[in-house]
Structure formats: C-alpha cells, structure tokens
C-alpha cells in the first residue's frame, strides 16, 4: 500500500509539472506577447478600417491618375497624396494591404530622427498578490498554536493523574518512576514522556509482582488533524495498567465492554487460542448488558475472580472499564502476517492487563480521584490472583489444553523443519551436479558422476526398505 501511494503521488506531480510549466510559461511571457501582438496588429487595423483612418503623413509614390496630374501641374517636386473627405476612399480601389510593409516605415521613421523606446510596464508584485502564501502562513501558525495548546493540555492531564495516585503507589511499591538512562536505581516520582500523547510510569518492588507499567494513552490533541478526526469519531483518553505476576495458576480470563472483549478475542494470541468464541453476559454479576465475559474455565474462574468485593467496585465504576485481561499465557498480539509461522514458540508471561477509559470532560485532579478505586483494585487483584488456587479438575483441564497447544505448535514447526531440510538436500545435490558438469578433468568428472549415482541408488534403496517395513508392520 505504501508503494502504491508513493507511485500515485509521483504520477500526480509529473502531470502537474507538465501543466504548470506551460501555464507559467504563458504567464511569464503573456504580457510581452500581448503587446507584441498589439504592435503587430496596429498597422493592419489601420489599413482595414478605412473609416477610422487619419490623414496619412507618408509620401507614397504612386501612378497618378490623369485627373490628378492635371490638377498638380504646378507642383512637380513632391507627390503628395491628399485624402478627399467625400466619404469615398481612394485606397479602397487601389489599396492592397499585402503590399503595405510596416518594415518600410522604420527606416523612414529613423530617418526622421524619432526614436521611440517602447515602455515595458514593470510588473511590481505587491504583497496583496501573495494571498495564497499568507493563507498558508496563517494555517502553519494555527497548527503551531494548536500544538502548544494540545500538548500542554495532555501534560496537565498526566500531571493531575500522577498527583492523585502518587501517594498510593509510593505505599505499594518501592520504586515509583524509573529513568532507564540513569544507572542508579532511584525513584523519580515522575512519568516518562514517551510522546506528546503517551506518558509512562514504571513501579516495582512489591510482593507477588515483578512490576507494574502504567501507560497514559491520551488523544492526540497536539495534532489539529487528529483533533478534527476525534470530533467526528469520538474517542477516549485511556489508562493502561499492565502488571507482571510472579506466580499464578493456569487460566485465561477477560471481561469488559463487548467490543473490547471481541477485539481481544480477535487480536490476542492467548485469548483466541484458549478462550473460545462464547461470550457470556455480565448481567449475572449485576453488570449492564454491555459488559461481556470470556473465560477459559467458565464457572470456577469467573466466580473466583469476580467475588463480592471486586464485583462491587467494578459495578460502581462500570462506565470507566474498557477491559480486564488476566492470563498466564500472554504473548502479545497475533502475528499480522498469518502465513508466516513463527520459528520458535513465543515467550509467555503472567499478566494482568487493565484498560480504563478517562472521559474527555475530565481534566482536573478532583475528577482523577474517581480513577483511584480502580487503580487500587488492580493492585488488590495482584494478591488475589497470586493466591487463587484452581480445583484439581480445572487445573488438569488447563494443563491438558496447554499441552495440546504446545504439540500443535511442534507439528507446525516440524513440517517447516522438514521442508527446510528437504530444500537443503536438494540444494546440495544440485551443487554437486553443477560441479560435476563444470569439471574439466574427465577422470574427476567420472568419479563425481559415480558418487552421485551411488547416492541416488542409496536413497532409492532406503525408500524401498521403508516401504517394506510399513508392509511388515501392517501385516
């Protein structure tokens, strides 16, 4: 798609350049051509429009008519053509426009001593002609102003969130805020600004978990185009909490808004492999119909995770929940290219991923306090999930399921490995044959040929032996 868009862009540019070149050329020289045309046409216009013609001051020698000759008997020096203003034009009869050559004028004019320098009008571009550039400049300044406003708004949202949650996090974790560039392990108590719309906070140093990564994924307020898109298709600022657990029993569980759970089922490897397609409604636990639950081990896990305490907090803040995903086989999203089979089994981790929606009308510290119970719940879930113990049957089922997935993966890779080995063998045989063909010494060539023949014979024998073994076994 990238290449298509680039190719299309280049074609458009080439077309425009061809059109613009002519246009510019016309514009650059249009005025001069116009003036030249005007100067060229003036004499013709004078000859053609006899009614408008003035008294000529050019002495044109011509064959005088008998009447004229009689009248001008006394004046023999100059042949002057007088125009008789009787409505009739003599030139209409005798005048041949093609004979009149304006070039003959210039030597006579020059002879007369008159040099007229044509006045070329100086094309002065006043600033009003640059209205397009002014408009572009205004647009750039609007973009920059929006950038400053948007980025400061995002910054204030992030700092108000940190302000309300910092005390709680300091109680729970030893390390709150880590600067990866600093070699010393020290709490910074500050969020890392990954971009103008993404802020990160890393907390570590607590029992049962390796660490907690909090990501504030805000709307791209700093980009005016994204702002316009957000107004057309409204979105939310999101808070993503990702906790890496040390121990947990094997299960995969997710719940949240229906569309988010469906997206998880579609995009996440572990949810798609272990959870199946059957979505359960959250009404059973007192949630609204928009909440869906998807679990590997339905029943036991759902009731264990959604106990009275957890369910109560979730019900109260249901509008803020986007998704809750608890998994011991988390390996990230599925591969984009489905044809590409991974060479080795992906690494899995035990995680609790919680995504919360921050409504856009919030921007103050007071409103951020409403998120605090859910952040506390996420830390509470760390201890709960670590201590959660499945029944024997459920555990066996889960382990069997994982074993099946592992074998399936091995089968896929086995076929791949076999294919790779076959290709390698074929390549080797081809190289051997090429070497034999290119060999100049006939003796060596004969020997290589013998080796190749022997190898092919051995392969055939092996296949035959295998075939006989299968027959014996089947018997």
């Amino acid at each position, binding site marked *: 798609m990238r290449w298509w868009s680039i190719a299309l862009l280049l074609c458009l540019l080439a077309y425009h350049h061809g059109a613009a070149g002519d246009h510019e050329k016309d514009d650059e020289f249009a005025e001069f051509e116009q003036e030249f045309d005007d100067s060229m046409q003036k004499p013709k216009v004078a000859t053609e429009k006899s009614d408008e013609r003035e008294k000529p001051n050019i002495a044109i020698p011509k064959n005088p008519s008998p009447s004229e000759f009689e009248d001008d008997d006394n004046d023999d020096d100059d042949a002057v053509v007088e125009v008789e203003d009787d409505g009739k034009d003599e030139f209409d009869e005798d005048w041949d426009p093609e004979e009149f050559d304006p070039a003959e004028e210039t030597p006579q004019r020059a002879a007369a001593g008159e040099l007229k320098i044509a006045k070329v009008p100086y094309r002065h571009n006043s600033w009003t002609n640059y209205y397009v550039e002014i408009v572009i400049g205004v647009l750039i300044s609007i973009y920059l102003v929006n950038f400053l406003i948007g980025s400061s708004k995002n910054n204030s949202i992030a700092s108000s969130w940190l302000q309300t949650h910092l005390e709680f996090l300091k109680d729970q974790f030893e390390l709150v805020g880590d600067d*990866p560039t600093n070699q010393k392990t020290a709490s910074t108590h500050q969020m890392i600004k*990954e971009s103008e719309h993404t802020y990160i906070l890393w907390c570590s140093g607590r029992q049962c978990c390796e660490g907690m990564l909090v990501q504030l994924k805000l709307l791209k307020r700093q980009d005016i185009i994204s702002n316009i898109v957000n107004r057309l298709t409204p979105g939310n600022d999101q808070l993503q909490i990702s906790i890496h657990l040390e121990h947990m029993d094997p299960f995969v569980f997710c719940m949240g808004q229906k569309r988010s759970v469906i997206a998880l089922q579609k995009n996440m490897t572990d949810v798609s492999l272990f959870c199946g397609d059957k979505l359960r409604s959250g009404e059973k636990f007192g949630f609204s119909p928009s909440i869906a639950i998807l679990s590997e081990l339905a029943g036991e896990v759902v009731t264990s995770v959604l106990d009275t305490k957890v369910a109560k907090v979730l019900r109260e803040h249901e509008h803020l929940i986007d998704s809750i995903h608890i998994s011991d086989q988390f390996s990230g999203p599925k591969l984009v290219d489905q044809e590409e089979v991974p060479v080795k089994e992906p690494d899995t981790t035990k995680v609790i991923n919680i995504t919360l929606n921050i409504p856009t009308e919030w921007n103050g510290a007071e409103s951020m306090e409403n998120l605090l119970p859910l952040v506390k719940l996420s830390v509470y879930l760390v201890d709960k999930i670590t201590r959660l113990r499945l029944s024997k049957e459920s555990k066996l089922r889960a382990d069997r399921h994982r074993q099946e997935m592992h074998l399936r993966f091995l089968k896929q890779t086995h076929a791949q490995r076999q294919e790779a080995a076959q290709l390698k063998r074929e390549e080797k045989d081809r190289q051997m044959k090429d070497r034999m063909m290119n060999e100049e010494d006939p003796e060596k060539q004969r020997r290589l040929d013998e080796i190749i023949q022997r190898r092919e014979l051995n392969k055939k024998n092996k296949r035959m032996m295998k075939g006989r073994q299968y027959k014996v076994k089947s018997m």
Partner: protein
Amino acid sequence: MEGTSKLQEVEKPKPYKVNRYEPKPESALDDAIPEYMNLFGMVFSMCGLMLKIKWCSWCAIFCALISFAHSRSSEDNKQVWSSFMLSISSVVMTYLQNPAPLITPW
C-alpha cells in the same frame, strides 16, 4: 544486643525484587505516522526543489510539522530537524528561482 538486632533487620532479605524499567522496542506498526510523514516530506521537498513546484514545497513543511507533532521522545530528533530544514530550503529556493506568487488552479 541492640546493635545485633539492628544488623539483623538490615540484613533481612526483602520479600520482593526491584526490577528496572526496560523500554520495549518500538515497532513501526504501532504508529507509523511519523515515518510516513517524514518520507512524504522528503519526497515533496525534492519535487519542490527539482521540479520547482511551489505547492510541493509548502506541503513538505506541513509534512514536517505533522511528523514533529507525532514524534516519540525515544527517537532521534535529528531526523525531524533535517526534515524541517529541507522543507524550508525547498520553499526558499523555489521562491528565489521564481518570485511570482503561487497561482491557484481556480
């Protein structure tokens, strides 16, 4: 006695481990806008310089701005700045060669 108890408290191993933050490698698929805008910016700048098309040069400035707005802190700033400089130089060179104002097709 007090000294030994204090020593024991100090030496008592913590029940947890403090792990450092490891930034995950950013894949271009996450948000490809900065890369695309950088590329378009360079293409527009080249077209503006070579083919003397003014609107291309102005578009290059917009592409550089959008790329800057979406850029990540972990990325090198040099690329964004070089994109800016290239687009500005493209605009300047096009107007030096042809100071006439931009003509709209309508």
